[in-house]
């Protein structure tokens, strides 16, 4: 069973459960105060506005007791995927490097973006080939990836960048960067290994054909591997 965490202010938890179910992956919502169930096969930290984005997006949820359990599970090999607010929580809790902060536009942006698959050798990207371009929606005000320059080089050298914002033809350009993210980075893998990853775009909103796009299904399929 995949645990989809629910904080006060999470709002993509149901979407994640439904998208996973459509792929034949059993998932349940888990209220953060209840702690992780005894045996989980994976964890989704979903999107939303946990704790009203007080202080910084994800800052409060990152320091809630259940995230200590998530860190422990991640360290022992349980797959963890943070999406949007879940990505902010992942970085705030040091599961993943860097930080997601205010968009360059200083606006909330809700739009479709193209992403270039940078590393197809992870559970989250095994469905794609390196260089593939996928279309996913974003919906965030604080999605600009920031990291110290030296550390971005390290991430690149270690092949830890999952996706970069790109043009429809796959070229990585400033014009295709929706939020000013350093290196056009949209998603990275975790400190514990490739089984932990975060991304700002929403694969769960692009999994069911009924809602318009299915390019994100391959990412959620990472829980099957």
């Amino acid at each position: 069973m995949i645990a989809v965490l629910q904080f006060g202010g999470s709002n993509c938890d149901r979407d994640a459960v439904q998208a996973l179910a459509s792929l034949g992956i059993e998932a349940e919502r888990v209220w953060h105060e209840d702690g992780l169930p005894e045996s989980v096969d994976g964890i989704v930290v979903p999107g939303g506005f946990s704790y009203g984005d007080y202080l910084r997006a994800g800052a409060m949820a990152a320091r809630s007791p259940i995230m200590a359990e998530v860190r422990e599970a991640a360290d022992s090999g349980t797959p963890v995927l943070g999406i949007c607010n879940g990505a902010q929580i992942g970085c705030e809790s040091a599961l993943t490097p860097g930080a997601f902060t205010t968009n360059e536009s200083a606006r909330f942006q809700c739009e479709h973006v193209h992403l270039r698959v940078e590393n197809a050798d992870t559970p989250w990207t095994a469905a794609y080939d390196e260089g593939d371009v996928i279309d996913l929606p974003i919906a965030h005000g604080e999605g600009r990836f920031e990291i110290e320059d030296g550390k971005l080089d390290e991430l690149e050298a270690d092949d830890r960048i999952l996706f970069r914002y790109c043009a429809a033809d796959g070229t990585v350009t400033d014009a295709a960067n929706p939020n000013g993210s350093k290196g056009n980075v949209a998603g990275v893998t975790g400190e514990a290994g490739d089984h932990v990853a975060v991304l700002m775009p929403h694969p769960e909103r692009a999994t069911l054909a009924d809602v318009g796009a299915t390019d994100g299904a391959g990412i959620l399929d990472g829980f099957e591997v």
Partner: protein
Amino acid sequence: MTAYTATVTVRLKSGVLDPEAQTTQRALERLGFELESLRSADVFEIDLEADSAEAAADRVEEMAERLLANPTIHDYEVAVAEA
């Protein structure tokens, strides 16, 4: 034990883009003000009891490290005064 007030100022590291400050600056310019640049910062005032100013500063610095600032993007300063 003495009562202290600690002031924690959290600001973006130099070189980190501050879109909200840029927007605020543009708004001031629209109002007709002349200015060279504008930076924003968050200030937290924390009342606490401690054995010494140093002990108060140590505790508040840990608060900044663990929650109030994000070391990837922020620098912070702590000032302690008797309340």
